[in-house]
Structures are given as structure tokens and as C-alpha cells.
């Protein structure tokens, strides 16, 4: 780990950490990243592992998507992340692609970002000199832009264990000509108190803005209310309003906005049903 950080520091800004290589290598094969030095992180044990620590779930940045899919802590404490991992690219890519890689790549359509946003995740960035934690929401700045510095690595990602009486869900809309990247995706996480009122709501959207984002206003209308059709519909409407999609070859902005509302509503209904019938 020390050597990897030293290498990155030495080669900055031309050093490029290489983990699963599912984005980087494919880009290299079409002629990008020429003149850069790849720092292979593939064998760093420090970047692996999924654990419960002090009320948090902590996963190493080098955890593969397949590992997420297989781990009971993820199945128990990160339902939307597990659902996202299940539909992430394909099994071969899942065997290679890492969580940190997906987040650092900072595609607006990164599939793991919405569920981790919904879980309220933070990321740990380390360099030879320092270690810092930032919330994932702050970490993501824009299209292919994050707070990570050229000499830093994303060592781990963590989130608080969701409380009792919580539920979450993820869905992505794909199956469209021209591209395998999702047209839009969304994740929700809700928790209720004993009286059935919502005490926590997070709604996150992917491929609907320059970076994956939280729909805060939509979350606010759910706070303190029972999770019922009317509130859910309003939250879904506000989530669609928060979306700032573009029109591209994969879908029009209008379509994305309209379907965002449908998907967020369905996810909230699904989550509320899961709360009623745990």
C-alpha cells in the first residue's frame, strides 16, 4: 500500500491507479491514457474486505462487485447496493470491477453511486501524507470529476448500518438500442419509527444529471409522514423535478424525467411494502 501511494505521488499527475481495469483497460485499448503510468492495485489486500465496525459497514475500495453480491453483510445492510450489484454490467465484468473504481470513474451513470448515496455513504481518501473522509455526495463533483487528488487512493467506503424498520431498493432502466449504459437509475432508502412514520428517507438518482445526485426536496416531504400513496406520489414528482437529465442517444430528457417519477414511486412503494411485510 505504501509503495502504491509512493508510486502515485511520484508519478502524479501521470500516474493512474489500475484496479479491475474494466473501464480503464477498455479505454486504453481504444488509444486513451497514452503516456500514463498504470499503478496496479490488484493485489493490495488492504483494499479488500467487507466488515461491520462500530455501527458501520466498511468495505475496501478494491472490493469487486461480485464480492458485494455474495456477502451477507451487504445483503442484510445494503439492499439497494445488493440489487444494483446484481444488475451491474455482466458477471464477467462484476468479477473484475471494483466499488472504488466505479465511484472514481465518476460516470454520471455509475451504477453503484445511487445506492451508496441512498445509504449515506462516505469515502476514505488516502495519500502518502494524509487520510480524509468525505461524504460521497460531496465527493462527486461532475461528469468525470471528483474530489480525489492525483496522489490519493480511495481506500474504503462506509455507511451506518441502516436502523431497524428500514428498507431500500434500486432499479435501473436499460434495454435500449445503441448502448449498454443505463438510461436512468434510482435508489431509495427509508426507515420508520414504531408508529410507522418516516424518520429517514434518502432518494438518489443516476444518469439524470452531470453526477449522481440526491433528491433532497423529495426526501423532505416524506419525513415525519406515514409512507402512503399520496406522499409517495408527491416525493416521486419532486424527485423527477430534481433530475436534470440531458437528451442523448440513449434517451430524451423528457423521457428520463417522466420515467424517473415512475421508478421512484415504484421503489418507494416497494420499500414501504417491505417495511409492512419484513
Amino acid at each position: 500500500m505504501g509503495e502504491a501511494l509512493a508510486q502515485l505521488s511520484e508519478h502524479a499527475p501521470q500516474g493512474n491507479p489500475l484496479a479491475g481495469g474494466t473501464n480503464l483497460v477498455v479505454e486504453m485499448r481504444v488509444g486513451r491514457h497514452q503516456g500514463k503510468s498504470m499503478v496496479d492495485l490488484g493485489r493490495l489486500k488492504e483494499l479488500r474486505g467487507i466488515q461491520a465496525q462500530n455501527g458501520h459497514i466498511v468495505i475496501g475500495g478494491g472490493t469487486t462487485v461480485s464480492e458485494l453480491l455474495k456477502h451477507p453483510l451487504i445483503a442484510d445492510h445494503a439492499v439497494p447496493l445488493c440489487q444494483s450489484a446484481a444488475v451491474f454490467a455482466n458477471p464477467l465484468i462484476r468479477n473484475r470491477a471494483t466499488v472504488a473504481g466505479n465511484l472514481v470513474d465518476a460516470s454520471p451513470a455509475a451504477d453503484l453511486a445511487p445506492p451508496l448515496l441512498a445509504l449515506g455513504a462516505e469515502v476514505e481518501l488516502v495519500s502518502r501524507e494524509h487520510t480524509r473522509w468525505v461524504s460521497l455526495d460531496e465527493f462527486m463533483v461532475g461528469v468525470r470529476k471528483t474530489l480525489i487528488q492525483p496522489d490519493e487512493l480511495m481506500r474504503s467506503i462506509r455507511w451506518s448500518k441502516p436502523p431497524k424498520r428500514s428498507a431500500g431498493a434500486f432499479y435501473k432502466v436499460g434495454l435500449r438500442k445503441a448502448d449498454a449504459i443505463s438510461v436512468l437509475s434510482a435508489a431509495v432508502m427509508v426507515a420508520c419509527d414504531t408508529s410507522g412514520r418516516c424518520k429517514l428517507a434518502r432518494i438518489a438518482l443516476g444518469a439524470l444529471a452531470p453526477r449522481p445526485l440526491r433528491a433532497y426536496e423529495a426526501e423532505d416531504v416524506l419525513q415525519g409522514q406515514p409512507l402512503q400513496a399520496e406522499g409517495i406520489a408527491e416525493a416521486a414528482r419532486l424527485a423527477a423535478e430534481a433530475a436534470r437529465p440531458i437528451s442523448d442517444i440513449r434517451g430524451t430528457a423528457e423521457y428520463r424525467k417522466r420515467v424517473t417519477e415512475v421508478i421512484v414511486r415504484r421503489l418507494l412503494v416497494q420499500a414501504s411494502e417491505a417495511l409492512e411485510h419484513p
Partner: protein
Amino acid sequence: MVSLKVSVNGQDVHVEVRESEYLAEVLRYRLGLTGTKIGCNEAECGVCTVLVNGTPVDSCVYPALKAQGAQVLTIEGLAPDWRAEAKRRKLEGASAVDLHPLQDAFARGGAPQCGFCIPGVIMTAKALIDQKPDPSEQDIKVALKDTYCRCAGYSFITNAIQTAAQSVRTGRPVPPEPFALPGTKTPLNVIGRPLPRPDVVAKVTGEAKYADDYHFPSMLHARTLRAGHAHARIKRIDTRAAKALPGVRAVLTAADVPGEPNHGLVYADWPALCGDKVRYLGDAVAIIAADTREIASQALGLIEVDYEPLPLVTNPVQARQPDAPHVHEAGNLLKHIKVRKGDVDQGFAEADVVLEREFRTPFTEHAFLEPECAIGIPEPNGRLTVYVGSQIPYQDRAQIAACLGEPEANIRVIGTLIGGGFGGKEDIAGQIHVALLARATGQPVKMLYDRHESLTFHPKRHATIIRIKLGAKRDGTLTAVQTELYGDTGAYASLGDKVMTRATTHSAGPYNVPNVKADCYAMYTNNPPAGAFRGFGVTQSAFAVESMMDWLAETLGVDPLTLRRQNALRVGTVTNTGQLLRESVGLVECLDRVGAHLQSLTCEPWRGVVSGSRVRAWGMAAGYKNTGLGGGAPDKSAAEVELFVDGTAEVRTSAAEIGQGLVGVVAMCTAEELGLPYQHVKVLLSDTDLTPDAGPTTASRQTYVTGNAARLAARALREALATTLAEKYDQPPEMIRFEEGLARVNGHEVPLGEAARLMKREGREPKALYTYWAPQTQPLGTGGDMHFAFSYAAQAAEVEVDLETGQAHVLQLVAAHDIGRAINPLALEGQIEGGMIMGLGNALTEEYIIDDGQIFTDYLARYKMPSIKHAPKVTSIIVEDETAEGPYGAKGVGEIASIPTTPAITNAIYNACGVRVMRLPVDQDKLLLALKRGDKEVY
């Protein structure tokens, strides 16, 4: 160079590699393990899958050095791996095991078609059953998502994996016939039986060799400089810097083509190398041969070309305008194709209902998983050999010879196995280039396209605009159909003339229409060329006419199946081109059997069934497709059958095996006629020095013409044998029976090997060459028989539409195909399911996107084709309305299966949600918008 130490298939390997090499390249090119294929270099297609420490990875993007110290398992190591396990588990007959149960089940179950994807699929499946010893269908769909099989034998793959998993679990061998097939006629000795294709073991072990799997000593590697401009004049080409690069052996431009400057299957309009101007992005401007592929690639960047951009022609309607820029000097019209029957004005006047609409279809891409590859080898005797996976080896030879300015006899074309063609490997790709470079350097030269180049370069399915007007009486009788078609044939003719002719002649559907008028304009543009693609134009026009038939049924308030049945072609009716159908028209039976099956599922198939925001409904369509070239083209094929003294036979012909199973068809015909066991017949395909010309592998023709050639060659040989035996054993030849590898003659049982020896002793060779001429056809416009046979189909699709998102999914397909006679029900079913799934892609996901001459779809990631997760349940019904002249009654099947699928799906979408799809592929975005707006049609 760095040292890589890795265990491959249980053996420690030390190999020097460059840091930039990938595992697939090391396996294939340094270790010679060519069972691992490369399809895309983008981690999109999965054909390169190997196991690294037990985990399946895409080896094409797996940096080789990441495998340092790892255990790598490839297809070549699978059987030894299983032998070791079988021994450890003390399984019965362990030492005798030749194949892993997965390989065995894939082979017996008919999963491989072209076979190119199979090593990757099997390795992915191996990892799955290691994890899940009893995988469900869903487990398989998850594990194989994006491990593509373009022949789309997904149900065969699923069955094979489950069968193999059971064998691994229990240690019991794979059953000989793993699963059920649709019912077909009682088989003969060989014909009609579900036999594994002769090349199947090679295809499941990785031994099957495709063009890039060949390597020759001192072989150079070639690359092509592509224009990168859609329409431009070439002002200057400077190759000096490229030539000066160490390791570069030759750089050739148009000036270096010694013979004919152009090639082309119908019209020689396609420059081997462009000298004065380029007409699409993928045009070849220069070719390079160098010591390595890397040097050749580097040299590409050193060639300087000055272009003067010219105005673009981007669509066929613009192309036809008088002031449009000219793509070719003679103008942009490739051909105006006309069909005339009766008097349409009168037909519309007689109609109670007249409907008219315009439909659009996009360019689509074959996406055969094996990118094009050719190897040219100068021979010591001055001749030149070209290895290539091509659908038309003899025409390759003619075209190579013409460009080289050499006699055809100088050239030998050896056809390798083909990793999928679907029409996309009929035109010249690298064949001429490697010949030129081999001549220039005196060394063997390999030209391998990467996926990006393949997508950019090769001809597509024609994009079309089809306007159709249809008139009918209140009782449903069609009175007139008028169509106007525009076909975008792109920069070069390729087979555009023939494809659009087929689109036009079939544009009124498989119906008895008294008055027909069709006009088609096949236009040159600055888009990539368009040529042959399974369905050959009929895929496009079927979408238009079958959509209209459903609309007519709705307008008249009649059942869509009944309406089609009422108007269906049948014996005694006359086609649009004036051909009286005298026999073998199984359309009505297809319709009836699909109808009966739907009845067994639901009494109101066309009515939507709502469940929350989702609606399900069925839709249907019919179709027909000619077998053979037709239109007056001489259609012949030759085959030679030789009997050896060991009692085996060989059949030789130059038909191409592109996954359709032709190699099995000719072996079966030969075995049937000679009374030999199927396993005793070997097949040698596609070597212009050794195998006679079978014509192009196109137009669903090979089973018919080459099946007949093999059948009649074998029959001629049998008759010759009978003459010999008759004399020796004193019995009339017609009394001699040939069965089970024996001739039964006058109480004797003479093994055929012995019979061959007797013939030789008489000074006669025990072989026979037969050139089969298919029945004469007539050119379009002259009336009479334009084609010698047609296949027919009726298909129904159950579709679910999500009314809130516009997403549409196909849940199941029911289909009946009249293919005359099932020669091999196993291969037939593979063709049918694969064709239908290709049709599903055509309906829902596939579009090759070009914007203003610029290609968007230049990576495989940008082209969605159906994967196993899209593959619905298929119920297949075989109708065998025999054609007298076909081999044992057989007609073609290659194309018909993919023709009605698209309109069956779009009609189901209408039945589910009330919106008609007027443009392909179905766009969930636009469909949702139409639903919200209450529009009845979506463009």
C-alpha cells in the same frame, strides 16, 4: 519484455511478454492456444472468456501481467481437468473420458452453430456449475448475460448446461439425445434424424480453426488505412514516412493495384484501394504489411493523406433529388426496380377500404462474432493461396485474380471455418489486400480486423423507407397493393440491386393480390455500403406489409389470422411477379397450426391482459422467402463424392459452413444415398483447388442446391458401384441394395470399401462429380417462375408493454415454418430459434446509427443485440410441405425464420397498448410519449 509465469491448463508456463499485452493475445499468439477467441477487445461479447483462479474473465481486456502466478484454465484444458476430477471422484470410465460433460452436452444437444462463441460460453458455464451444481434457467440467464451467441442458440445452450451439470453431479454420462425437438416426418435411414454436425467436437474443444487461428512461418501482419471521411477527394497520399519505419515491409496504395482497380459481386464499383476519392468512412486508402501488428498500426499514423471534403449524400431520398451531389459519376441511382401485376387503379377502385402508411427501417449490423480475417501466402511455384472465412470462395478467387491481373488458376482460396456470416461475409474484406501484400513482400501476410474496423467497414442491412397502400373489399379480399421503397445501399452496390429486388417482389406479402404495383429506388449514399443480411430485403418489406395486414384486420373488424388465411398464397395462386404456384405452399398449414396453438393458450390472444401498469398481448405475422438466386440467374452447385477402400466416403464441395449446418446436410445426403453410416462420411469444404464450385452461400440456397449436388453425386457413385457389383456377382444393378455400409448383392454382403477396391481394379475411380442445376428461373418482369421454391412461415409473439415506462419485452414466440422437409431436425431448430431471436433484435434493440456520414455504432458496446436474457420461450412447429425437386423435399430455412418475427412483435405491441410502430427499432422513449399523448402511431 517481461517474464510472465503462469499455470495454463495445469502446466507451468514461462513466457516473455510486452507489458501492453493481454491474456487472450498471450494465450492465442504466444502459446498457440487458439481455442480462446477474440470477438471485440471491449469486454462486450464474452467469446474470450477463460478462468483465472477459477473466476471467469474477459481475457481480451485482462492485462497479461495481472495473471502473474495465477492458474488459467482455457477450453483446451477442460477435458484433462475433467479427467483428473473423474479419476479423483472414481467416476465410471474416467480414463476413457474424451470430453468434459459440458463439451459432451453442447455437442450432443446441438448448441454450437458457427461455434465461435462456444469456447467462451462453455468456460462461463464451467464457472457457473462449479459454483452452482444445479443451475436453474434463471441462474444460467444471469451467468451468461452478455456472453453472446449471435447464432442465438440460447435454448440449446441452456439445455446443454443443465444436462452437463446433472452429469457432473451424478457422474453419469450425458444422455445421447438430451432433449425434445418439434415433431417431423418419419426419418429415412439418415435423413430426418437429429444428428450432431460433423464439426461439432472440434467446435466444443477449441480445435476448430477460424482464419485468425492459422499461423505461418515468417508471416507479416497487415493493417488498412481507412478514409475517416464520408465523401472527399484525395489530393495527395504520402507514404514515405510509413515506408521508412523499421519493420514495415510494404505500403501499398491505389497505384499499386496491378489489375482491375475495382471489385464487386454484381457491379465492380468498389475500389480495392481508393485513389481519387473516398465515398464512406470505411473506404480503404492504403494497406501496410509489417513484422508485427503493432508496427503496422504505428505506420498507419505515418501516412499523410490530404482530402478535399465533398458535399454528402446522407439518405436515399436526398440521393434521388436532381441537385444531389453524385456519389458515383453515373449518378446515385443504382437501380429502379418495378413490379407490375394487373391494374392497381382498378384494384383500388374496387376496394371498400384503402389504407396507406409509410414505414422506416434502420441499418442493422450482422455482428457476427468473428471479425474478418484473411491470410495471403505466396507459394514456391508462383501461385498464391488465400485463407479466408468467406461465404463465396470461388467469387473471391475471381475477384482476387482480377485485381492482381493474374489468371484465376494462379489463385487458390481455402475457406476456413466461419464465425458467423448472416450475409456479412459475401463481399470482399481483406482477401484482395492480403494477396496484394503477399505479392509485394513475398511473405505470408495476415489481415485481421478488430471489431471497430469490422463495424466501420462491412456492408449492413439496407435502411429503407417503405410507403405502402393496400386496398380490400369489405369481406377481407385484397384487391390491390401498391408500394414505393427507398433503399439506402450506401457507397457501393454490394448486393444492393438483388436485396432491394427481393424487398420489392415480396413487398405485398405472401398473399394472393390481383393488382400489384411496386417501385423501388436503390440509391447510393455516403453511408457504409449495404448488402446481404439474412432476410435479404424481405425483413424490411415484411415489417411494412404485415403491419398493414393487422391494421386492415382491425379496420374490417376481422381476426388477423383469418384475414391472412383468406388471402394466403396457396397452390394455384399467382405471386406478385406472375409466378403460378404449383406445389409446396404450406402457408395455410402454418397459419392453422399457429392458430391452433394459440387457441390452446388463450381464446382471445389479440386482446391485452392488464396487470398493474403492464399489459400483455399476442401479435402475429406471416412471411415467405425464396430459396435460391432466382430471377433468371443460373443457379447451380457441384459436389464430388469419393469412396475409399476403408469403407468411408468423402464429399467435397465449396459451399460455406457459416453455422447453418451445411456440412451435416451434405454428409447426410451422401450417407443416405450410399447406405453408409453417417459417421463414415467426411466432408471437405471450400478449397478451390480441391472442391468444386457450389456458388454463393446466400439466399437460403445451399441445402437445396448443394444438398442436391451431394445427393446426386452419391447416387451416381452408387450406380457406378452397382454396375461393378452387378457384373461380378451376376445380378441386375437395380436389385442391389446399399445399406449399413454394405452392398447386398445376390446373397453376398460386400463391404463398400471392398466395392471401391473392385472399381479401382477395373481401372475406374470410385468417385463421382455432379453439377446440379436448379430449375430455370425467369427475370423479374417477364412473368413465369422467378424462383424455384419458397419457404413460408407464420409466427406469433406474446409481448408485455410497461405503460409507464414504454419498455416492451417479448415473453414467448410460437412459430410454424414450412421448410419442405427437415433434413436434420436438430440443426433446423437451431436455425429457426436463432433466426427468430435475430428478428427480435431487429424489432427491439438493433440499430446501426449513422449521423451525417459519421458512424456512432463503431464499437460493439454501442450495438445492442439479443443476449440470453432477451431469449423468450420458443414453441416451434415444423410444416413439411415437400417440394418435388428439393433434396428429399427440402427447401431453404436460413432466412424465413427471421422475417415475420419483427412484425409479429410490433403487432403485439399494438394489441397491448394501441400504438402502431412505424419505425424500427421500437423506441421505448417515443412509445411512452405516444402513450401519454394518446397517439395511435409512433414514428
